[in-house]
């Protein structure tokens, strides 16, 4: 379970929050002109990255406000929280050495890490604009 920092209320347990999925997906303004493929892109297609991810949370059992967070989905480290309408900040974090690999800390999969020697200690840094 995470401890999440609500931008209004401060640090609380994850069980007070509900999840809103990928952030910064704007509803298209010209939907009447859009074809099925572009509409499908908006409704169904998702980035689902292993790495830095911008997502929405709602402080359901608190102030009931929505906000955004940047989380490293390979380690569950929450890197930043920011308010709706704000740009995501630039962050640094440790990523797996390969796209589908396991990060050196916090991956939840120590067995796979032991198998992958040479990877220990290696890290990559990703900047999110």
């Amino acid at each position: 379970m995470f401890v999440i920092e609500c931008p209004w209320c401060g640090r609380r347990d994850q069980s007070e929050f509900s999840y809103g999925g990928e952030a910064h997906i704007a509803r298209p303004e010209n939907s009447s002109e859009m074809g099925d493929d572009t509409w499908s892109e908006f409704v169904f297609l998702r980035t689902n990255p292993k790495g830095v991810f911008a997502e929405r949370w709602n402080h359901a059992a608190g102030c009931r406000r929505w906000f955004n967070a940047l989380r490293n989905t390979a380690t569950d480290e929450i890197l930043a929280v920011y308010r709706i309408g704000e740009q995501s900040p630039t962050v640094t974090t440790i990523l797996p050495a390969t796209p589908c690999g396991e990060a050196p800390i916090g991956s939840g999969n120590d067995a796979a890490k032991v198998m992958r020697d040479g990877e220990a200690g290696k890290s990559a840094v990703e900047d999110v604009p």
Partner: protein
Amino acid sequence: MKRYSFFSLLREGLRGHTGWPRVWRNPEPKQAYDAVIIGGGGHGLATAYYLAKEHGMRDIAVLEKGWIGGGNAGRNTTVIRSNYLFDESAAIYDHALTLWEGLGRELNFNIMMSHRGVLNIAHDEHEARELIRRVEANRLNGVDAEWLNAEQVKAFCPIIDISRSARYPIVGATLQRRGGINRHDAVVWGYARAADALGVDIIQQCEVTGVSMKAGAVTGVETTRGTIHAPKVASVVAGHSSVVASMAGLRLPIESHPLQALVSEPIKPVLPCVVMSNAVHVYCSQSDKGELVIGAGIDHHLGYTQRGSINIIEEQMAAMVELFPMFSRLRMMRQWGGIVDVCPDASPVISKTPVRGFYVNAGWGTGGWKATPGSGHVFAHTIAHDQPHPIAAPFTLERFASGALVAEHGAAAVAH
């Protein structure tokens, strides 16, 4: 392949088990193959096996980043059934169940398939109506299904609490007698051994890190063990489907979530069947070792860390103790998580893609184990003929633009 039999067991027993051969080779990757399968889980190995066996392709590699069966294949609770609501789903899941029925013999490997029956419980009138509708739909599709009232549920599974005062009263349940469980490792090893015998190279410790393309067609993959050329590349990587698809420049209608399970200390046989409850998010069976195998719901947040949150299993265990008061003092021995690839309509993607020669089998989410043989079988056809097998045709990526979704949340949901 040296066949396993009563006589080979007897012979090896007498000579101290010194003569068992290696079960599959451990080859170095070649520079080129006719087809590369990414992912050595149940679905990937089954795909390779049926490609070799039914479509005459022998020059195939299965590339696995860790060890085969170390992903969801090795982490799932192996509940098998085919009582899905829609015709499209009934077709693929029952195709799989029919293959499961003969698979141990076909692979010459004891997969410990046990058709012990699966109960799906209804806790209120509305759920009962939905489940009875599902029983009728199943029967129309030739899938075995029965409706049991509370007393019949109690007779089939005596340790369940059907008292009216229970927190989650039991109104009735569907029963699929052909449903059951099997042994996950044995399925993985059985497919690996049979595929290897047909010439398939199973390459472990080999992560695909890039997909090479030229003029809109796939030409091979980059891996942690070098470049491998292939005119056909199939991604069967479950939780990592979006990551591998992005290497081919594709976005999928899939999100990855942690899903947990746990096992209790072993006890004497008390639970003769599989019990599932969609409403309270718990499903349970007892292994031959005596451990209760218990599955939970997914964590709502997307993620790739194979663990999951404690509050999820707390709620699930609370529900379980309500259904089976006698389990209240059992200790839980192990807990783990896998990463499941969830589609918005709770149905899989078995599809060609806009990149020629690149195929995707994904989105099985929380319930793909039961489909393993069927999924591999129809996906092999899709790869070999470059067009979908009739059973796989409703599950292409195009449905997310056409709107022809196969919305199986009622039958798939969190429970399996």
